[in-house]
């Protein structure tokens, strides 16, 4: 203790024994190193407790006041701080503090730090031997590109793992872009009795040249001929499970939507949008017919447009 023990307690020489005790308790409450992590508080507490040790005994205090002993010689040889031991690994008083019961985090937590006694679970030793070191294997994360039809219909694909070896992966029917497939136990090897980790495959579904997808519905734009549009008829339409006959109604037009019930994914539909496609060349016959037809059957599909052309 460097300075005046009375000053360390915030007192003067005239303080009574009761005032000394009270002052020490006040400082200890605020600055005890096991309760206050601030280094300045620890320094204040050390000075105050050394001062208190010297002054609490009336005879010793009298000798100090008379100059027979000095403050220096009365310092405690060592003060034991519990905190120095408390953070150490393997401290038998270590306590769980709330993650063991967390449904989302308890596994991550116990992988890192193991399990500990809860409230009331005092006692050292226990069944856990610190030499039995169990850690679950690492989780692997990969991206997996799946073609449109495999994602829609389900199926199997083989992947090659970055660290070597390949793996057959079952693609569930109706897999969506951005979804994750978890392969339990296909991650890294664990240590001790810790099981292997899992592999997570984040799926990217490649676009299809014809099919698009909207939830469980499949969208397709179907080109039809001029005569199919005028006369109607049955045409073969591709679906994700193969071609299906579709009846085009008489007078069908571009943009008109037809629905194939149950031909989508998991009970969804296939929506077919019609698109009239002209023949590659307009021949003499067609041109002549249209000229005659136009004379008597003029119609204006633009009548509804508000902004005249």
């Amino acid at each position, binding site marked *: 203790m460097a300075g005046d023990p009375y000053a360390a307690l915030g007192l003067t020489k005239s303080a009574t024994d009761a005032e000394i005790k009270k002052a020490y308790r006040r400082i200890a409450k605020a600055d005890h190193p*096991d309760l206050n992590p601030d280094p300045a508080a620890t320094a204040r507490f050390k000075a105050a407790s050394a001062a208190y040790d010297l002054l609490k005994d009336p005879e010793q205090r009298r000798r100090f006041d008379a100059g027979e002993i000095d403050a220096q010689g009365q310092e405690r040889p060592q003060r034991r701080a519990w905190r120095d031991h408390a953070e150490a690994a393997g*401290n038998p008083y270590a*306590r769980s503090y709330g993650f063991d019961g967390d449904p989302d985090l308890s596994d991550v937590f116990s992988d890192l730090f193991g399990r500990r006694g809860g409230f009331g679970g005092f006692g050292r030793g226990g069944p856990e031997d610190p030499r039995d070191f169990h850690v679950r294997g690492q989780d692997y994360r990969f991206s997996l590109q799946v073609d449109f039809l495999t994602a829609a219909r389900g199926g199997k694909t083989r992947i090659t793992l970055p660290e070597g070896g390949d793996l057959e992966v079952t693609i569930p029917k109706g897999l969506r872009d951005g979804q994750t497939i978890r392969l339990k136990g296909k991650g890294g090897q664990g240590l001790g009795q810790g099981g292997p980790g899992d592999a997570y495959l984040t799926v990217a579904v490649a676009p299809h040249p014809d099919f698009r997808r909207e939830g469980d519905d499949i969208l397709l734009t179907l080109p039809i001929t001029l005569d199919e549009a005028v006369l109607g008829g049955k045409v073969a339409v591709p679906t994700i499970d193969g071609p299906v006959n579709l009846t085009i109604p008489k007078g069908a037009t571009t943009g008109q939507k037809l629905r194939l019930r149950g031909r989508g994914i998991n009970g969804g539909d296939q929506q077919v949008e019609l698109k009239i496609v002209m023949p590659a060349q307009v021949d003499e016959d067609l041109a002549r017919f249209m000229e005659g037809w136009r004379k008597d059957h003029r119609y204006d599909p633009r009548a509804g447009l508000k902004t005249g052309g």
Partner: protein
Amino acid sequence: MARHYSETEVVAILEDLDPARLRSFVAAHVVTPVVTPDGPAFTDADLARLQLLCDLSEIYDLPTDALAMVMSLIDQLNTARGDMRALIQAVASEPDEVRGRIQTSVRRLRIVTVEQG
């Protein structure tokens, strides 16, 4: 092997500790002696813990049931602090890119940003 102290030695070393108080701490399970062929024994860490228990009893006049509660909270805090220290050291030794991701994630979860005006 850690040094062991008998009950008599512990009471002699710690000024504020007497046999009755030591027995009440053991009965309240706030300190747990090691069982040896020569009877209950205490480690250096137990000595430090007993010092804190004496301090808490002296400073706050805590009854033993309240002392058990306070020690449970202190133990939880110290365990969390030790875990946190280990985790921070592990994070510190990761490459910048990993530290950046962890920082972003922790900030999103723990720091509230208030938009100005």
